[in-house]
């Protein structure tokens, strides 16, 4: 499944996109990324699944697009 990182999170991971083996839900993805990039633990972020903000621990499909979004700063 495809992950996307934006803003300061892309800086921390050093990537804007990352392909990983499928996970069941958003919590599993987050845990995997926190293990791979420990600095993520200090960051505030939301997850979007297929461009919609995930509430709680959302189930995923293998083709889900999962995005890590730092706090918004538009306007």
């Amino acid at each position, binding site marked *: 499944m495809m992950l996307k990182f934006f803003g300061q999170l892309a800086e921390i991971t050093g990537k804007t996109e990352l392909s990983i083996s499928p996970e069941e839900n958003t919590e599993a993805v987050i845990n995997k990324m926190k293990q791979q990039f420990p600095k993520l633990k200090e960051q505030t972020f939301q997850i979007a699944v297929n*461009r919609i903000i995930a509430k709680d621990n959302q189930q995923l499909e293998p083709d889900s697009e999962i*995005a890590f979004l730092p706090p*918004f700063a538009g*306007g």
Partner: protein
Amino acid sequence: MDATNGISKNMTARKKHNVFIEGAISPAFIADSIAKHSTKTNIGAHDIFLGQVRKDEINGKNVYAIEYSTYTEMAEEKFHEIREAAFSKFDLTCMHIYHSNGIVKAGEISLFVFVSSAHRNAAFEACRWIVEEIKANVPIWGKEIFEDETYQWKENTNK
């Protein structure tokens, strides 16, 4: 009824509006948008919000510019949802939203929300509502670049 208004009722979710502008939004562009509304003679009130980049001083350093970036596909969907919701919540004649992408220097404009209605209440309320929605829900990020080329990531306040 006019064509712009009809969008909210007649079109499905994929109508694209070009919201993002590369770099600053110029006063001439704003004037041109205003001028285009002179043919819509059912409009009595326009409310325009402009976001301008501040030269904030942070730890003794001045902000020189903000570099905006976005999650384009999600942002476009969010702008579309905001647009649809605004037309259904408020009695509007038309609305336009433009946001900068890339570098906008201090003193330049990065957000232009333009709402028009027959009477002032709807324009005022919708404009305010739209700006709050954009700040809260559209995935846009800004790097505050200082004069010495260091930077920090901007966070929105609710002021």
